[in-house]
């Protein structure tokens, strides 16, 4: 069975599109599930629509993934357009609503291009072949005599050509060719893939026309601002809204029930102030008085919790990878080096705070939201309001940043809950304070590292332990151990060490824990690559040379894979040749070793593989006599396989250096008695232009390996490379994030 479908021919779209429009769809549900889906949910077996060519020549390509600044809304349609041989400058992009037919729409894990590249090529190439067939039949010539140029089928021999619009009606009547009969372009034939194309939305962004979630509207909507329980899980005891109701523009107040654990993506609960505009809602809220019940999470103090985590990390934990026998090696009594590392909670703080508009009417919900996961919006609203998932329609706006926060649609559910109570559309706007205090926080983490080193300074045994409240706590109140986080730079150490063990210890969650750009890789890479540099120093070796020795000879690192990971592992084996290459490349480009470190000036290096992409970073720092730090340069080499949009890759990796600089230098969330202490950019600090790296240089390895992730992998190596540079400059080893916790002078 072919997973590309000629939707126009099958009459799915009765009345929905103009006659003569050629429409192709694709099934993105994975093939192994087809049989089950056909039996259980035949509706889902209908293909998601991806491409339409109208008889006036308009080509519309559907973006089924969300755009939060990583470029997937441009990249995937661009791939379709290239294989179709469309004129990219004339293509329109339609953003898909949330719909299981589109398969996985959760735009996270840096996998839009890597998961859908082949499918999108197939959609475009199939369209092209069908347009050629249509033209060849019209001209009564052989298909192989025809070719295409952007927007046209061409018959060179007779100097004839027909536009795609002229051919759409004929193509709409054709059968979809077999996959074997659809040739894909060779790399050299690509017109757009691998070239520097701009983001589709660029002109709208610079003129202020782009529609973000903050800009979404529905006729007759009212505005809501919600006073959430300060401690996770608190319920309202009583509240006084007299003063709030006196605020000009405030209409009424409503309550939202506190979730029943596990909190999942449900609303936090609280008191909502409904008003004529955002400002009035904010003002009304300031005048509210709410008495809150107690919550078991009020015991949470992040300072004390740090001690608990650190002692957990010192104890043996669950073994997640074991090679050789570290204990036997440690017992031999050679030179032992130990170190501990700590990283705090972080908030996502995307520039656009959480926001959504929703309308409940007659058992159905319509929502507009800046969401990474419109299907999670459907599921969450369905479960909170007891409606059918299919009765929730979620439109996706542009996202003003997301970084993982906007995979969780609690604020969209809030809007739906309020709309149901009010009988009109509601726009819920979170303040920055709401955003910082009620995030799904990046987890605190403690790591313990221990190595035995031989006479050559190389480790003969390497033990690493980590402990943190797991993301699984969002879905299961009893979750204590990490799960998927282990694959994020912990159970796949790419070093050539005969004895190695990686462990994970248990921890409880007292705030909502979520994934933040590169997730557990952040603290894992921090500990591993700071420790590696520490060993290099102990051995009196150059950090780059030592890192290459640790990585060892080019080879495929044998890793365990769960059944559902095997396919990916076959396609993307952990290849140390590629890791070595980015290290060598970044060393060369940065002029590593040419200018000496010390006296307040230093260079540091780290290399990490995340989301199947190999990244090596060198950071240069200058530290003045007052301990003020500047970052004159960051050099990054990246091997992400086949690249669809190279300039966008550069932009993402530059951005990752800035994101990395924020968390390495400044950002920290702390909690006292269950309440988050930070609230806005005055106390949750991010780098600004005067504290960010001055220059960021990105080097992309040319590769025809399958595409890998881009949005996240630039982040993890930054912090350790930066701290290693601080050590080179000052002799101070940084064992705690962010840098502002350590006095440099």
């Amino acid at each position, binding site marked *: 069975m072919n997973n590309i479908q000629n939707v126009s021919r099958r009459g799915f779209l009765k009345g929905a599109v103009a006659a003569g429009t050629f429409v192709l769809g694709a099934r993105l549900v994975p093939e192994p599930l087809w049989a089950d889906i056909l039996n259980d949910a035949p509706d889902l077996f209908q293909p998601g629509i991806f491409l339409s060519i109208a008889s006036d020549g308009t080509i519309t390509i559907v973006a089924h993934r969300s755009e939060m600044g990583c470029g997937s809304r441009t990249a995937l349609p661009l791939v379709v357009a290239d294989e179709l041989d469309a004129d990219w400058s004339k293509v329109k992009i339609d953003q898909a609503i949330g719909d299981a037919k589109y398969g996985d729409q959760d735009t996270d894990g840096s996998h839009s291009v890597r998961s859908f590249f082949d499918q999108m090529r197939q959609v475009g190439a199939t369209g092209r072949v069908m347009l050629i067939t249509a033209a060849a039949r019209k001209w009564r010539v052989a298909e192989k005599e025809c070719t295409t140029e952007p927007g046209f089928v061409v018959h060179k021999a007779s100097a004839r050509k027909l536009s795609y619009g002229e051919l759409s009606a004929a193509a709409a009547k054709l059968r979809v060719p077999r996959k074997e009969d659809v040739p894909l372009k060779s790399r050299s034939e690509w017109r757009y893939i691998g070239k520097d194309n701009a983001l589709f939305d660029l002109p709208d962004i*610079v003129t202020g026309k782009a529609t*973000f979630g903050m800009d979404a509207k529905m006729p007759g909507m009212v505005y809501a601002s919600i006073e959430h329980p300060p401690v996770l899980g608190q319920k309202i005891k009583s509240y006084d809204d007299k003063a709030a109701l006196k605020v*000009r523009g405030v209409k009424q107040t409503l309550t939202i029930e506190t979730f029943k654990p596990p909190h999942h993506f449900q609303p936090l609960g609280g008191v909502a102030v409904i008003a004529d505009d955002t*400002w*009035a809602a904010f003002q009304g809220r300031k005048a509210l008085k709410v008495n809150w019940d107690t919550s078991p999470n009020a015991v949470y103090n992040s300072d004390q919790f740090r001690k608990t985590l650190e002692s957990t990390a010192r104890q043996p934990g669950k073994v997640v990878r074991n090679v050789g026998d570290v204990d036997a090696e440690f017992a031999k009594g050679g030179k032992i080096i130990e170190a501990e590392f700590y990283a705090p909670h972080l908030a996502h703080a*995307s520039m656009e705070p959480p926001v959504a508009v929703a309308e409940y009417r007659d058992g159905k919900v319509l929502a507009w939201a800046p969401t990474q996961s419109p299907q999670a919006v459907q599921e969450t609203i369905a479960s909170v309001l007891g409606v059918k998932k299919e009765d929730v329609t979620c439109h996706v706006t*542009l996202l003003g940043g997301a970084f993982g926060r906007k995979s969780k649609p609690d604020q969209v559910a809030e809007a739906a809950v309020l709309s149901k109570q009010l009988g009109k559309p509601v726009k819920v706007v979170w303040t920055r304070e709401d955003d910082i205090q009620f995030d799904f926080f990046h987890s605190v983490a403690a790591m313990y590292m221990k190595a035995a080193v031989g006479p050559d300074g190389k480790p003969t045994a390497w033990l690493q332990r980590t402990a943190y409240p797991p993301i699984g706590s969002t879905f299961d109140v009893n979750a204590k151990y990490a799960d998927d986080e282990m694959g994020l730079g912990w159970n796949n150490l790419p070093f050539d060490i005969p004895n190695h063990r990686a462990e994970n210890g248990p921890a409880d969650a007292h705030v909502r824990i979520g994934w933040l750009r590169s997730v557990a890789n952040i603290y894992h890479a921090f500990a591993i690559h700071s420790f590696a540099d520490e060993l290099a120093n102990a051995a009196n070796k150059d950090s780059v040379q030592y890192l290459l020795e640790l990585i060892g000879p080019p080879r495929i690192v044998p890793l365990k894979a769960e059944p559902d990971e095997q396919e990916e592992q076959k396609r993307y084996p952990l290849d140390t040749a590629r890791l070595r290459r980015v290290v060598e490349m970044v060393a060369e480009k940065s002029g590593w070793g040419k200018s000496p470190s010390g006296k307040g000036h230093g260079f540091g290096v780290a290399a990490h593989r995340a989301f199947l992409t190999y990244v090596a970073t060198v950071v240069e720092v200058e530290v003045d006599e007052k301990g003020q730090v500047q970052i004159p340069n960051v050099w990054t080499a990246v091997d992400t396989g086949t690249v669809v949009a190279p300039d966008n890759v550069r932009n993402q990796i530059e951005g990752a250096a800035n*994101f990395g600089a924020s968390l390495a230098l400044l950002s920290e969330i702390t909690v006292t008695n269950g309440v988050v202490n930070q609230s806005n950019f005055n106390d949750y600090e991010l780098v600004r232009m005067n504290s960010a790296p001055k220059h960021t240089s990105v080097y992309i390895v040319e590769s025809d390996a399958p595409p890998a992730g881009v949005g996240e992998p630039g982040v993890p190596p930054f912090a350790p490379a930066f701290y290693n540079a601080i050590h080179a400059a000052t002799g101070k080893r940084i064992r705690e994030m962010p840098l502002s916790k350590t006095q440099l002078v």
Partner: protein
Amino acid sequence: MIRFTVNGTERTYDGDPEMPLLWYLRDIAGFTGTKFGCGMSLCGACTVHQNGEAVRSCSVAMKELEGTSITTIEGISATGLHPVQKAWMEIKVPQCGYCQTGQIMQAIAFLRQNHNPSDQQIDEAMSGNLCRCGTYQRIRAAIHQAAKEMA
């Protein structure tokens, strides 16, 4: 009644005099190119021009508008693009784009005062504008390019 202009058009307002210009622009006048990021003059996403100077619209109350002229991103160039917007496009500055209208408004006001800025002057002028996606280096490059083009 408060009288002022937005993008050259006369306007009057008699609502809550304490309402920040930001929310008037966004919720009442419909100029949504001006963004909300912090509400406390900490991020610059809401930057507009008041009598040609960059201000944070989240921190300018409506009562302060009497007789002044406000320009938002929508009023920068009705046809085509301002050199700063052009430079932004050529250098492909934006990622998510949410902070960028504020960045552009800040840059335009700055370049009116400084036609040939140094890196350091740019850094100082732009440090009130956050970009969580991290496009600072491109913003600096685009400002240099726009300065050249406008010279």
